[in-house]
């Protein structure tokens, strides 16, 4: 299909949007991996959340 003389602009816009969306996805993924790793490292040192689940329920 033909997008006329402005095809460059159209593809550039869609491309840049795609890139931004991918960047957002990459950001949350990497951030998640990072926090997971930190939590794991802390857990290996024996530092975990001590508060049990049922207690947290009546905390609020």
């Amino acid at each position: 299909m033909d997008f006329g003389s402005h095809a460059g602009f159209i593809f550039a816009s869609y491309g840049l949007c795609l890139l931004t969306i991918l960047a957002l996805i990459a950001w949350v993924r990497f951030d998640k991996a990072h926090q997971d790793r930190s939590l794991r490292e802390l857990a290996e040192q024996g530092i975990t959340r001590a508060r049990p689940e049922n207690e947290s329920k009546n905390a609020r």
Partner: protein
Amino acid sequence: MRSPALNLIAENLTIDRGGRRVFQDLSFSLESGTALVVTGANGIGKSSLLRTLAGLVALAKGKILLEGGEDDKLPQEHAHYFGHQDAVKPALSVLENLKFWQSFAAPAQTAGFTGIQMTPAEAVETLGIGHTAQLPAAYLSAGQKRRLSLSRLLVTPRPIWLMDEPTSALDKASEQQLLDLMNGHLTAGGMIVTATHTELALTNTKILHLQAVAPDASAPEEMLI
């Protein structure tokens, strides 16, 4: 002697600072003419307790009441906070510094508290820095600045004094002077909450000892998050 018209009550105070629980469920009450001496190891939260009573740190739980205080005022507006910082402006003269605080801080008059209001000149005279009255505060030594800061409590009568390490930067003679002032304040029906490492010879004291408890029993709410 006099009826204890004032009663400072703290109920279940719980404080989190920077995502860390400083202390929890701390309760006490304090009557007119009594000093509460807060003791405990470094970093246990003595300063935080005083700043909480001063209304500077938000409570996570609990409340602070002042029975017999002025109705339209918060408890901290009946209190003077004498902390580590002097709040002295070097560019102003000693009297200018003091006159500002006298006009700026609202006095709190309550039944049972008979503390009198000194003029700035009398106050600096009382604390032995009368000869510096006209000098810019920049020329004062650390101890003199401390005393200038202390004279702030004398020019605006308020029944509660919150004093964090009041004796720091004071020599022996000034320390005795400070104790006399504090005892005078108690006799007048005021109350004092002080955090200190040194023994203070006060007339009528209660001790509040802060100590660490097991970590797991007291995870802050923030831990959830």
